[in-house]
């Protein structure tokens, strides 16, 4: 630990702390544009200039001590940037001296002279560092009587990012992000001096899967998201902390909404998961929640047509349809997109009905070494831990075979389309019961006997376990549309209809029940997971599912049979 004097008060900071971070920790925020703690420090914006000093050394090369027993500080005559140096023993900094304020005013004035004052139509307005620091560190009037430098506007840097060069303050954060994090050296500065312009080579586009992070870190309105552009003033947006469910990484996010509309998703810092970043694929993957294909009403198939019914009727009908069957007559195609709570209730249901044929649909795609996982299910680990699957998707051929052979009479599809697992439309039509719980209509939905419309990731609460074994929490950012209902409630009601009251009234109750049965969740509650999650499993560890050995043996026997048959 180093002793550092910040604005007159001696404090301690660990070795390796950046001065600018130390100041912030000490409650003296130092304004900055170019500095970003996850990127290299070029020191180019000069906004973080502070006064700095090192201990005055006596003739014996030891620090001279003042009356207070602390080192006397030899203040450097020139202001120093605080973003490029680490704290040192006996260092002193002043963040609000007259010199520092003068520096800040000077830099603010320089940054504003050529900056267009188009704040009223700028997407960054409201979350613009230039605006914020103008209030705190700037002057109220302009002395600039010249013409501003003209630069390109409305430049499409790539499919998702639009650039306004006149707003750019040349902090180079985006360039460094592309080089250092996205490993796609596509942006650069051309020309020189005040005419310097951010651009990409005409033959290249900023189209890597992380391009929108440049918009997040742009301190001004130079880089804007083409998706979000001109959609909503940011100050109207309600922010909800959540996690991305587009792959097993589970990047921490903030969902920005207004009146049950999602406008954007941005990454939220979590060094155990996603640092400050997220991929474009995950970020923009929320439009389907506002799709026209959303299932809005519970429906049952009666006679030869669908009828929209109320929830009690739908649940009762589903229970009625399932009741005649048990064991090998029932199959469940569940989803790695379901939350732990949903999976847990499903597991209870499966146990109640003695269901053996249950699995999730594996979902994979090309990954990268940055954030995107090859496993595109957000909760494969949860499904493993809660015994829904041991090898995702391995049992689906068995289920398909069993449906085909007519052994399975009742099929439940939870957030997945069984047609994709090799079951034909005809086979679905032949089922005595085909219960669908899903968000969107798909090719199988119209063959269902009961349709239970449920909620998307941004509309509900619950927990998931990411690919590295971290338990994280979803939060409700918007209300679900129509009569769609929270998945865990649907499953709870179904369970109640089949087995009687189970004392579960809230999602917290579900989690409590889980935490009592699953050792990895011991002592946890939904609120204890917190915003940053809790590590509950070792990364890449395939947990032994909490099922009794007998079931396990049957599974093994079944798997053997399957493999024999397929050969």
């Amino acid at each position, binding site marked *: 630990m180093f002793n550092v004097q910040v604005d007159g008060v001696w404090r301690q900071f660990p070795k390796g702390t950046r001065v600018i971070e130390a100041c912030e920790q000490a409650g003296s925020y130092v304004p900055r544009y170019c500095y970003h703690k996850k990127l290299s420090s070029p020191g180019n914006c000069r*906004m973080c*200039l502070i006064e700095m000093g090192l201990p005055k050394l006596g003739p014996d090369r030891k620090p001279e001590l003042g009356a207070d027993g602390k080192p006397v500080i030899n203040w450097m005559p020139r*202001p120093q940037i605080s973003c490029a140096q680490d704290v040192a023993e006996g260092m002193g900094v002043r963040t609000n001296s007259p010199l520092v304020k003068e520096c800040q005013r000077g830099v603010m004035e320089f940054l504003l002279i050529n900056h267009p004052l188009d704040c009223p139509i700028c997407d960054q307005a409201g979350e613009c560092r230039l605006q914020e620091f103008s209030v705190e560190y700037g002057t109220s009037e302009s002395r600039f009587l010249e013409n501003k430098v003209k630069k390109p506007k409305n430049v499409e840097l790539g499919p998702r990012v639009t650039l306004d060069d006149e707003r750019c*303050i040349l902090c180079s954060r985006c360039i460094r992000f592309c080089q250092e994090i996205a490993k796609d050296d596509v942006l650069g500065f051309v020309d020189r001096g005040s005419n310097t312009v951010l651009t990409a080579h005409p033959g290249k586009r900023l189209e890597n899967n992380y391009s929108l992070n440049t918009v997040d870190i742009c301190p001004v309105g130079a880089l804007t998201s083409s998706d979000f552009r001109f959609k909503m003033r940011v100050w109207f947006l309600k922010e909800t902390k959540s996690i991305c469910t587009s792959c097993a990484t589970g990047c921490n996010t903030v969902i920005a909404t207004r009146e049950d509309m999602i406008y954007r998703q941005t990454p939220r810092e979590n060094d155990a998961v996603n640092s400050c970043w997220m991929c474009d694929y995950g970020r923009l993957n929320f439009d389907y929640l506002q799709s026209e294909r959303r299932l809005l009403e519970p429906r049952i198939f009666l006679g030869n047509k669908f009828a929209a019914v109320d929830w009690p009727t739908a649940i009762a009908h589903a229970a009625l349809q399932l009741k005649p069957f048990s064991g090998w007559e029932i199959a469940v195609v569940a989803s790695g997109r379901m939350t732990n709570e949903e999976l847990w209730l499903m597991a209870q249901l499966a146990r109640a009905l003695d269901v053996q044929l249950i699995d999730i649909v594996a979902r994979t795609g090309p990954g990268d070494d940055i954030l995107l996982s090859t496993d595109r299910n957000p909760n494969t680990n949860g499904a493993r831990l809660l015994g829904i699957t041991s090898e995702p998707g391995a049992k689906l051929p068995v289920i398909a075979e069993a449906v085909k052979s007519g052994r399975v009479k009742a099929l439940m599809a939870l957030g997945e389309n069984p047609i994709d697992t090799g079951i034909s439309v005809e086979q679905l039509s032949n089922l005595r019961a085909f219960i669908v719980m899903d968000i969107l209509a798909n090719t199988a939905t119209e063959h269902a006997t009961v349709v239970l419309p449920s909620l998307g990731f941004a509309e509900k609460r619950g927990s998931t376990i990411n690919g590295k074994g971290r338990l994280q929490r979803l939060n409700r950012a918007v209300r679900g549309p129509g009569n769609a209902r929270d998945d865990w409630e649907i499953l709870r009601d179904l369970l109640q209809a089949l087995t009687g009251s189970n004392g579960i009234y809230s999602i917290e109750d579900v989690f409590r029940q889980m935490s009592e049965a699953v050792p990895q969740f011991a002592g946890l509650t939904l609120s204890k997971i917190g915003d940053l999650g809790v590590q509950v499993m070792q990364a890449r560890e395939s947990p032994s599912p909490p099922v009794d050995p007998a079931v396990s043996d049957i599974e093994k026997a079944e798997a053997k049979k399957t493999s024999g048959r397929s050969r």
Partner: protein
Amino acid sequence: MDEAIGRYPPEHKRSAALPLLHFWQEHFGFISDEGVKWIAAKLDLQPINILELVTFYPMFRQESAGKTHVRVCRTLSCAMAGSYRLMENLREAIGFEPTIDNHGTHNPISVSPDGNCSIEFVECLASCGTAPVCMIGEKLHENVDPNSVVDLVSNPQSVIRNPQSPHPLEHRLVFKNIGRADWKIDIDTYIDNGGYEQLKKAVTMSRVDIVNELKTSGLRGRGGAGFPCGVKWSFIKPDEKKPIYLICNADESEPGTFKDRYIIHEDPHQLLEGILISCLALDARTAYIYIRGEFPEGAKILERAIEEARKHNFLGKNALGSGFDVEVYIHRGAGAYICGEETGLIESLEGKRAYPRIKPPYFPAVLGLYLCPTIVNNVETLCHVKHIIAMGGAKYAQLGRPNNTGTRIVCVSGDVQRPGYFEIEVGAVTMGQLIYEMAGGLKPGRMLKAVIPGGSSAKVLRADERFKIKDRQSDGSIIEREMSIDEIPMDFDSLTAAGSMAGSGGVIVLDDSRDMVWTLNNINEFYAHESCGQCTPCREGALWMKKITERMLHGGGVVEDPRTLKTIGDNIAGRTICAFGEACAWPTQSFVEKFPDEFASRAAKPVPPPLPPEYISEELTERETIPTTALAHDPGWEKAGSAGTI
């Protein structure tokens, strides 16, 4: 091309970007997009990395120039000697449309309709003593008569000027071979005159001994900052594991300075010997000479000198049988003043935009070229190393004055009768002697108005100022004397005490015919053009100051302008990544402070009302009508180009 790439460590072949761009432009005339992509692919880079360079370095063109390309120097000494008129006359003679100054990054190139000829205004060509100058192709033309441009274009023979023989007040060490009638630049002449003897001596000395001689000599860097050379060298750890690099800074581009040009052109082996001795002292196995792009002949001369020296085994493997392998390579710049800043130079040498690095942590002696320990020294400084080895550090230290030892080359340009270079014992000559005796005094009937004593970034000194200068005696005691400008000794400490600096030794003399607003505007234009644009104060401030002085020059000065100029300077100096901040702020600060009347007389108009007219809230509530002022109430203001203010 592969040879050019081979000059740099394989993992740093990006360094070859500038050489390859030069090859491409020499071959095709300009850098096309194919060129950008081809070079990027060759160096395993992205096209943007190359495009960044093409647009940063003014010597690279993205469109074709004429068969004969003329570069006219625009900077102060040349402008004072009529380079604007030269430009006008050239345009007229060749039949160009006057180009609109687009205030872009690079001055526009105008090409004649038949494509035979093109002209470009460029910043300082480092030949201020023979102003005005221009380059036709690769040839420098000196003392060009602005009124006889037809000859210049039709008969483009380089005007060879007679080398200047020494003035009696001079003490020539570095320049002792320059101007000799019998002097040739080949290695044999050099060896016959005792050349490379000091290298042979240095081979027998230990590293520590050489560095100690340097420390004893008290040699201070001649590039501009005046940092003690021996101290700089001793920053290299004796047990350094990483490779150590020596870089010779031959990017001479401070307006008013033109000394290194002559060393390179007329005594290249002296520089090479100095470099090789320094390599021995520093254990540097590789030295790069970063020579500015506008010295194409100099680069060729040095290449030749290196080959000659290699044949004599002064460099290469096992140089002089010492077991020491040393290589010296030439690296050409491409027209960016900022490459004279040592960390900017290092970035440029690494094949990047010459953005100076932040210090800490990137002190060159610790994290320099390729993040290895690196020493960057000016051409003249490295030449002195040879003489220090010859004379011994102690004897060298007797030259000049305490803390200001040795000799240095002072370049005088501007309004004097005989501009030129003079090698003096530091501090042994006063400003008055320099101007009136050595440089022949002012032009007939003219009076001294001001002197810029150390390159255009040094603060200006007024002719009628009184300076309080502390004179350090040889016994260490200090006597303070008040003196006139003529009495100031030409040394580091005295000029610092006078409120300016010795800088790079470029003395620009201004007589009473000079308009200080015009002069400052010329300087401001240089710095606005040369600011690299990396950090905020200099990027925005340099152009702003230029815009103000230009407006003042065109009759649009408002009363607030001098104060605004001063505070802009205050907000730049000391707040930037590199010393360019001071370099561009000091002229403005000093001109405005020292010539207030001249600036005030150009700044008489009232400040225009802000847009939209503002009122205070009390007025709104208390008064029936809100007083507003017409927008452009002053026609002169409009003329000055104030459209779209604020």
